[in-house]
């Protein structure tokens, strides 16, 4: 068996929901402030998933108060408490970089009926 895979499997999460580019997700991250730990949510559209086993990351884009922001999360990081899919999107490409050039109504993603 592949040794690298066997190492990565020890750290991989199994409870990751099925989501992809175009979906609106709510990412609950653990934030440590001194001794206290709290959960912070970040909600937005997934614009990419960068695969690679344990190293997989995904990027969430949201427009807050007119300013666009993007955050890239390591999918298997223990600091990610949970990921909730809020809405499924219907998109035709894997990387939604075109959303960066659009604002307002043009930046919408069609909802996917499932």
């Amino acid at each position, binding site marked *: 068996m592949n*040794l*690298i895979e066997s*190492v*990565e499997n020890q750290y991989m999460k199994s409870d990751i929901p099925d989501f992809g580019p175009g979906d609106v997700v709510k990412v609950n991250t*653990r934030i440590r402030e001194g001794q206290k730990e709290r959960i912070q949510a970040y909600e937005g559209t997934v614009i990419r998933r960068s695969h690679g086993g*344990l*190293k997989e990351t995904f990027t969430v884009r949201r427009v807050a108060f007119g300013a666009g922001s993007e955050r890239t999360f*390591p999918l298997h*990081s*223990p600091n990610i408490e949970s990921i909730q899919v809020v809405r499924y999107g219907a998109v035709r490409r894997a990387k939604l970089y075109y959303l960066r050039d659009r604002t307002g109504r043009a930046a919408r993603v069609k909802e996917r009926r499932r």
Partner: protein
Amino acid sequence: MVNGIIGRKIGMTQVFEDSGKAVPVTVIQAGPCPIVQLKTQEKDGYQAVQLGFGTQKESRVNRPKRGHFAKASVDPAFVLREFRVQSLEDVSVGSVVDASVFSEGELVDVTGTSKGRGFSGVVRRWNFAGGRKSHGGEQDLRRPGSIGASATPSRVFKGKRMAGRHGAKRHTVQNLSVIQADPERNLLVVKGAVPGPPNGLLLVRKASKSPI
């Protein structure tokens, strides 16, 4: 107690600490290494164990080597390497050294042959800054500049860093911490990078110096 093992670099990945911090790690296939010979003070002038690693077809082993392995009654190994030991009391020929010589959190030194880079210029080989790209410096982008003074000393000093063969040399990286050691899978995971390409031969020893 043997303080080292022969291994093969498998590749790199990352793992997560409990705090959520991602740590770059190298995965090493460490051992199993049968002890093929003991070097003794009386006979050889120093104390060491000779370890074997990997497998080799019987037909590829020449007769003197075949006899050497037969004497230790171990299967022919791909490579033989020696590790100095303090005492030969608790080691015996034929017994197998595995990843259990290391434990989690321990510091190790990893020796390997770095990737060969062929004939490289001074920018790559010695991290020279090169010339500037604009303001008339275009022709000196990767040149070494002056290599010394003129009439005095009328020669280039020995050891002057110049272009030449780079890499493919034995290098040791010190004080890498062990993230995981699993003798069942012959697995050793250390933090950080080690010399050489994937599949390269590595010698892993307990750290010879303690970090500052």
